[in-house]
């Protein structure tokens, strides 16, 4: 214990007496922290905007048309398949999802682009409402808006909204009454609005050839299982029982959202390289510092300080300087984030930020590891040039 206190004393005295120099290093770490936290938040924001709805669906499996590579937009299913899935033993319920995009017309000729999602009342796929109610029928001209829509506009429960969809070559306008507000449900970088399946077919953008079609086109089917722990078994069972389908779990469905994996991979690579640069910068600084301190460490060892004391003092110093840098960086990140417009998809998720902070706290010791080994290996005789 005496040696630990001694190491703390040496480490902190040196930091305090050379606070300008150490603060400079902490600021470098703070900037790296700022960058890493923003990259993490950006990754989380982009990912969330892409997958939010799918990740919140109350289902364990997703049924696609066979050979569509689990891409929701490429899959086309029908009512027959939906009924077949519902009949599979072990399936509690199944609900269709029809996807498209539209625009809500706002006052002042402004529009808000949204994902138009067609779902069935009371079936998997419909989001839980946090305010208001769900649809009464599959043909009701009602809409559930996600919280993001409410936040970005002044739309509230009971309002009638106007959506604009291009059908054929003409813009068509449809009125829908807002009956419910769900939690945030972004899909493909857009906030979502949910309508009954038949209303979706009527209101969605269409080519000229599709205008007369009134049967809702289903993209995928969400499957809720009686026993969610049997998802793997049920996945195989549905594929074997229902013809011409492929089945995926929710994580597989998310990773196959077009661009999702590539985007997350890019952001994670950026984060990784930023951390790597951090390790090299911190490592370089502490290595130079140890080289400058060789005689000092030689004196310490010659007068009886053990390798443990010298090594631990170096580690404490590195951890302290890194922690100060990360704290300053965290504060800067918070202050900067207050000034960013809501259109920038920064999402400070607790777990991803915590992971980034742990990684940042680890880069100091990781970078300084070589210098600590070097400090421990310094021979007082050579350091003091007695040999």
């Amino acid at each position, binding site marked *: 214990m*005496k040696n630990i206190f*001694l190491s703390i*004393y*040496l480490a902190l*005295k*040196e930091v305090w*007496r*050379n606070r300008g120099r150490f603060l400079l290093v902490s600021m470098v770490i703070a900037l790296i922290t700022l960058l890493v936290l923003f990259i993490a938040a950006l990754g989380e924001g982009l990912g969330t905007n892409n997958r939010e709805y799918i990740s919140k669906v109350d289902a364990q499996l997703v049924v696609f048309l066979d050979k569509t590579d689990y891409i929701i937009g490429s899959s086309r299913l029908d009512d027959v398949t939906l009924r077949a899935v519902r009949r599979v033993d072990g399936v509690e319920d199944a609900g269709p999802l029809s996807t498209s995009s539209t625009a809500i017309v706002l006052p002042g000729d402004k529009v808000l682009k949204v994902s138009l999602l067609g779902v069935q009342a009371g079936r998997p796929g419909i989001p839980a409402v946090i305010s208001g109610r769900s649809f009464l029928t599959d043909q009701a001209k009602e809409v559930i808006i996600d919280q993001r829509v409410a936040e970005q506009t002044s739309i509230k429960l009971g309002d009638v909204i106007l959506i604009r969809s291009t059908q054929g070559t003409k813009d068509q306008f449809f009125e829908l009454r807002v009956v419910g507000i769900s939690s945030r449900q972004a899909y493909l970088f857009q906030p979502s609005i949910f309508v009954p399946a038949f209303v979706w077919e009527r209101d969605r953008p269409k080519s000229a050839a599709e205008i007369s079609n009134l049967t809702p086109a289903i993209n995928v089917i969400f499957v809720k299982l009686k026993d969610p722990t049997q998802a793997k078994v049920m996945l195989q069972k549905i594929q074997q029982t229902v013809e011409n389908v492929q089945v995926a779990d929710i994580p597989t469905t998310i990773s196959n959202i077009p661009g999702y994996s590539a985007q997350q991979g890019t952001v994670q690579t950026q984060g990784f390289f930023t951390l790597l640069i951090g390790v090299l910068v911190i490592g370089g600084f502490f290595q130079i510092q140890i080289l400058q301190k060789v*005689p*000092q460490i*030689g*004196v*310490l*060892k*010659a*007068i*009886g*300080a*053990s390798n443990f004391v010298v090594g631990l003092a170096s580690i404490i110093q590195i951890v302290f300087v890194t922690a100060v840098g990360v704290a300053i960086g965290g504060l800067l990140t918070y202050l900067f984030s207050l000034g960013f417009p809501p259109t920038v998809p920064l999402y400070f998720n607790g777990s991803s930020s915590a992971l980034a902070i742990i990684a940042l706290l680890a880069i100091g010791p990781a970078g300084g590891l070589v210098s600590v080994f070097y400090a421990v290996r310094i021979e*007082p*005789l050579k350091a*003091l040039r*007695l*040999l």
Partner: protein
Amino acid sequence: MSAVALEVRNVVKTFESDSGTINAVDDVSFIVEHGEFVALVGPSGSGKTTMLSILAALLTPTSGQVLIDGQDLARMSEGQRVGLRRKKIGFTFQSNNLIPFLTAAENVEFMLRLNGKLDKAGKLRSQELLSRLGLSDRLNNLPNQMSGGQQQRVAIARALIHSPTVVLADEPTASLDTERAYQVVKTFAALIHEDQRAGIIVTHDLRMVQYVDRVLQMRDGKLVKVLNDKKEILALAKGE
């Protein structure tokens, strides 16, 4: 307590080099008693610094024994030698003596801290010691705020504060002007005598030996001459 603080018995230290084996210290034996101040002199390459490194438990002899308070350094593990340096040896070096981020008082107190003996009395003792060395107005100065002579005096205080058995000084006057050098060695000698420590100073400046009790002359790794007589020592100091 035995009068003998340090005993060197037939110490040999050899180094291997491209040109063959070098006998840096060749069968050297001597004794230093408590309260005795000894100078180790000799030309460059005579082996005096190697001898000092062996006495400081920084280097192990190839053969022979070094006993401090009866404990044989050669039989100790590295950890035990570190402990011995901390408790029983005081050391001042040619330069880079002090921890640069500690004040004069903190540098001296550090030796007590290292030994787990820093208390109010210890702090007071270190301040008194520094005052005796003429540094009462420099207690809170960092090394870079002090002259070379002042730094050497702080190093002397640090070497003595923890009441070691042996105090070793390697060319402590090398970077000082003559006046400062005399002052430093004189004070050093006085403290060695007062505190009954065994002091060994390595120096190439023979003028400094006037303050010691005995001179050990080395050449080519061997102890070639021992001067015990004060007149002989003073004559050596005067270059006669």
